[in-house]
């Protein structure tokens, strides 16, 4: 029996069939959406100023949340994977919880912590003069709360799989721990880091329940695209679908740019 290059064997066939089924499963609903909506409707929505405002806000909020997730999440992932400290198991568990919490309850929890009557609300308001709920900052916090765990868990998994000898070699060459993280650890896990960042950003972009509960639905301030979609669903289902397609297109473009940047030719 001879195999020509690229001709799939039995295993390839099985893998290909299942992978193909998966693609169909993901594609079909999107096709279903596409055929439902007239291109004119998409164009109408895209040119509406309120939609452009929501889109801009969505990008600002989700990118800021992704940035915050990096800032807090990378050190946390590193600490969970590499620094033994008491309560590490508990900390790891804690991080996974926002993923399981129904988002609306997540918003309630954020109110309980940072609302005016929350644990930190008083000190924040009287000490710093900051009232978080109903602000763009609250939308960012809500998105960070639900999205950061995806980055943390992905990166921690990758760190656990990384050969620690590379870090040891860098240490013998005199590199500080921060330098080792920046120049050895993160580049070595780059594919997983990119995956985690994509997951985190996408989750932040799609975030709805925690935002509407903690930040409200204020046009221009906290009304991100998913909230605009929700509002539109109430009156004009086709408009809502058109809005979603716009959201999809934008995120496709951004993810493609991200991947193109990090995996040339990938």
């Amino acid at each position, binding site marked *: 029996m001879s195999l020509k290059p690229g001709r799939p064997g039995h295993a390839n066939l099985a893998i290909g069939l299942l992978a193909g089924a998966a693609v169909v499963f993901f594609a079909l609903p999107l096709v279903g959406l596409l055929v439902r909506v007239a291109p004119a409707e998409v164009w109408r929505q895209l040119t509406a100023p309120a939609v452009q405002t929501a889109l801009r806000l969505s990008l600002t909020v989700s990118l800021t949340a992704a940035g915050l997730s990096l800032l807090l999440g990378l050190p946390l992932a590193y600490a969970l994977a590499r620094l033994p400290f008491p309560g590490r198991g508990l900390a790891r568990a804690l991080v996974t919880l926002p993923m399981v919490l129904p988002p609306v309850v997540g918003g309630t929890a954020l109110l309980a912590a940072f609302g*005016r*009557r929350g644990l930190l609300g008083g000190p924040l308001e009287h000490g710093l003069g900051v009232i978080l*709920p109903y602000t763009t900052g609250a939308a960012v916090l809500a998105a960070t709360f639900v999205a950061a765990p995806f980055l943390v868990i992905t990166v921690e998994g990758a760190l656990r799989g990384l050969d620690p000898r590379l870090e040891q070699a860098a240490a013998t060459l005199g590199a500080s721990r921060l330098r080792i993280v920046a120049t050895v650890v993160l580049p070595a896990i780059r594919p997983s880091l990119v995956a985690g960042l994509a997951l985190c950003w996408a989750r932040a972009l799609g975030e709805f329940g925690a935002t509407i509960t903690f930040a409200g*639905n204020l046009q221009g*301030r906290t009304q991100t695209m998913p909230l605009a979609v929700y509002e539109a669903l109430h009156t004009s*289902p086709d408009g809502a679908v058109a809005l979603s397609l716009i959201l999809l297109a934008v995120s496709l473009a951004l993810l493609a740019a991200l991947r193109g940047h990090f995996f040339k030719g990938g």
Partner: protein
Amino acid sequence: SGAPAERVVHVAAAMSLKEAFTDLEAGFEAQHPGVDVVFNFAGSQTLAAQIVAGAPADVFASADRAQMERAAASSRMQPARVFARNKLVIVTPANDPSIQGPADLSRAGLRLILAGETVPVGAYAREALNRLGVREAALANVVSNEENVRGVVGKVATGEADAGIVYATDVTAELADKLRTVTLAGADDVVPAYEIAALADSRQPELAAAFVDLVAGPAGAAALGKRGFLPP
């Protein structure tokens, strides 16, 4: 919105009030120069939860009494007034003529959608079915208890369900060609009521009161009437 205003009035209002309240915004801002009305449209229960947690709002307009009472329990609310009423109707897909009245809701095999019994419109619908004497049979046909009225409308409009009970105001112009409306004859005394109140700890008490007055006054009645709401 527009140019940065000096004073902001936060109005937390039930989602179904969006069009009517938005119609009122420009007039109010014209009457009160330098004031910006910022709406927060969401489900009444979400808004009530925010108010209980101390969210900085000035006015709350609820789709039912229960959520207003929840908010009032936080002792942040001024006394509430009923400012509008609504009407329940049966909706079916536009191309399905088989349902002619409430009695058809108990037909075997029918896929009926209601809002959950804790959602205002769901509670009203159950009460209406009770009055009509078809509660048990109709509830046996329920395939889903939606979290809000929009879920009911959407599923009937796409044909995934055969019938639902919603507010008359939910059949908007956009949906008119997808839905057929059947009156719930015999349940006219089940009347949904909307309530509005200013918050006791509002930072703009006069403006909050002014907005409540506007909504409950003739201008409000006109705007609400245009969107199909009934007077209080």
